[in-house]
């Protein structure tokens, strides 16, 4: 494995963490959005808020990690993506601002009307942000980002594949969130909310699966390189994802209390790495290879050191945060 390939793997590790934890936070916003008006949505919103409050900012940092690794290790790819897909990227940035502010403000104010407005801001932007991020990923996979950037600002992402991937991002975030919230409700001994999110996990799993299937057809017609590799080299990962998804559905349908999170996470992780394998050796299929975009060796070494430090310092700290949150030692006050 060359240094550049290793740096690309680090990029994918960051993207995986962001998809799992950031994705679940977006999904929490989705369930907040569809929880119904004040009275009806009261209980699920409380569960969502309690579960998101201590962790969402730390989870968000994975996005920064991905951006920084991309522009440091693969500057031409970063530049090409941003100079082509600036419309969905700017809209995602807008969503990130509204979502963070909406969530933080809602927690700290008391008036009902203001809370509703801030809650709606948080919830709506929690759906739009992953959607636009998904269109960016879809446009990259479809080969719509030229290596030297400045591709078409609209036709690069307003196409079936990018839009489908956007929808799939929203659905899989909702799926992850519902599964995580089932676990949180179980831990709190709240059976009503456990059932509530189980039903939603089931629905989201079906919808995410449908989008993934439609995405495969779109890949076939719009991103042939990626499709061919996904169904050859990437096939084992696709199978793992399918198995995880099927097992999760089975557990949910039989109403068992087996752990759901590893299965949900496994399904998502396998898709992300399947995508990585399918793109290989390209960062921008099929115009920019990993080695063509790579920064000089000394820069890559710094990226590795930073990643090692992250593994030694950040991951245990994150584990501490999650453990404290799961043990109810962190309490969101108002």
């Amino acid at each position: 494995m060359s240094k550049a390939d290793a740096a690309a793997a680090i990029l994918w590790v960051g993207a995986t963490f962001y998809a799992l934890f950031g994705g679940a936070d977006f999904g929490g916003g989705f369930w907040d959005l569809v929880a119904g008006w004040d009275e009806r949505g009261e209980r699920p919103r409380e569960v969502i808020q309690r579960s998101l409050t201590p962790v969402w900012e730390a989870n968000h940092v994975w996005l920064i990690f991905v951006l920084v690794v991309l522009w440091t290790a693969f500057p031409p790819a970063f530049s090409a993506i941003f100079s082509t897909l600036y419309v969905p990227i700017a809209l995602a940035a807008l969503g990130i601002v509204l979502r963070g502010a909406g969530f933080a403000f809602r927690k700290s104010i008391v008036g009902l009307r203001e809370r509703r407005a801030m809650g709606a801001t948080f919830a709506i932007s929690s759906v739009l942000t992953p959607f636009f991020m998904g269109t960016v990923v879809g446009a990259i996979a479809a080969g719509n980002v030229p290596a030297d950037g400045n591709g078409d600002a609209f036709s690069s992402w307003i196409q079936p594949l990018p839009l489908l991937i956007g929808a799939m991002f929203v659905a899989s975030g909702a799926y992850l969130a519902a599964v995580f919230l089932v676990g949180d409700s179980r831990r709190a001994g709240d059976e009503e909310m456990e059932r509530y999110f189980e039903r939603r996990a089931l629905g989201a799993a079906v919808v995410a699966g449908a989008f993934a299937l439609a995405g495969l057809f779109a890949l076939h017609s719009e991103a042939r390189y990626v499709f061919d590799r996904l169904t050859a080299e990437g096939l084992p990962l696709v199978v793992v994802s399918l198995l995880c998804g099927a097992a999760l559905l089975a557990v949910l349908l039989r109403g068992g209390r087996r752990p759901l999170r590893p299965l949900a996470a496994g399904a998502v992780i396998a898709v992300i790495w399947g995508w990585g394998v399918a793109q290989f050796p390209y960062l921008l299929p099929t115009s920019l290879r990993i080695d063509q975009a790579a920064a000089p060796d000394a820069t890559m070494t710094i990226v590795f050191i930073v990643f090692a430090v992250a593994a030694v310092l950040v991951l245990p700290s994150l584990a501490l945060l999650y453990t404290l949150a799961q043990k109810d030692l962190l309490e969101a006050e108002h």
Partner: protein
Amino acid sequence: MVLDALPLAESSNLLAAREQMAFTLAFHIVLSCLGVALPATILLANWLGVKKDDGAALELARRWSKAMAVTFAVGAVTGTVLSFEFGLLWPEFMDRFGAAFGVAFAIEGIFFFLEAIFLAIYIYGWKRLSPWAHFWSGVPMVITGIGGAFAVVAANSWMNQPQGFTLDAAGKVVDVEPLKVLFNPATGYEVPHMILAAYMVVGFLVASIYAVGMLKGRRDRLHRLGLVIPLTIACIATPVQLFVGDTAAREVADHQPAKFAAMECIEKTGDDQTEYLGGVCTSDGVKGAIGIPGLDSFLVGFSKDTTVTGLNDIPDDEEPPAHTMLHLAFDAMVGIGTALLALGAWFGFVWWKRRDIPRTPWFLRAVAVSGAGAIVALWCGWIVTEVGRQPWIVQGYMRTSEAVTDAKGIWFSFGLVLLLYAGLGTGAVLVLRSMSRRWREAGADPEGDTPYAPSAPTGRKYAYAEGNRPVDGGGS
């Protein structure tokens, strides 16, 4: 004819992109000061509270940490916007130099990560962690805040004094020396200048809030401590800052003569340069300024025989724009810094004499405006650094005009950003004010419970509930 119109379109994108970057940075920099320096301020109050069993100090620490939850969230998203803007506004800059100066940001990423994690543990750990475990969970915030500031400002220093990379014939970075990137000649003064600025902004800002309260007649122990703790920190940082800033100005004179000439309005190279305070810079010299003969040369080289480069020796296409603005921004920064130094000396002298703050309301009035003053000085300093580096984005290597995006609609996005941030700023201020009002109304026992004493484990109010008091003992 058609071609003639092109540079105009390009320069229009350049101006819009620069304005948007400047505006979003000016907004974020205040919040990042809070992220860098508020943790230490909070922990000092927390330490006093636990060590001396001081309820008022503990209550201050708890309130400040709740305010920090809001400002950190807003800072996290506005900081994210800046990292998006690197690609959205300056893709050519990132393409060419990401491999070099990205090194600093990779390191900053770790610090930001750790700060976000421990901030969450600290902010939400008030109820259920033991006092000292809680205190220590906050200490990493202080270290990572300083580390993060180091990394980000090192990146900016590198833009001012780039080094540690090799370019090939096509201008592509082919080799990087990370340590030289991180520890470039400007790091040594820019980094401490910014970290001290953060401590000054936070110290004076927090103190000014309690000064306003005291002027309104709220003279309890909570307000006194709320003024004295942050003001002490700020007043220790200020004299050090003036020393660091003075060194920084000399370094700029040595290494970025164009920036120095513009900020000091020096038209002609020579010795015995006059130091101008205020005024308007014109090509025939400074109008309407107070001039102190020879002082500028003296400040640069400790002798009035020191030669200082004037704008006449800078090629026209390498001259920074807006000399008068740069000059006034520099003067305002130094002027405000000096006034804050005097305020600190007054406070320090009276405290030394009789362990109390000066009794006159004029002292409280001065403290009340010191927070805004420190923020203005901060902005002025950044204007000098950033505008003074123009037309370069990487001094001597890449012009800002070469770095800017070809994307359409930058003016539109700038307009949208203005609206969005107006809402964001208003929202943040309203939320903080409503929190402070609730604390005041709740009086000495603000939440009906005390830190480090678990409340009833359930019955937290739901997201959309009216009223602020948790429904204790609700059970489920």
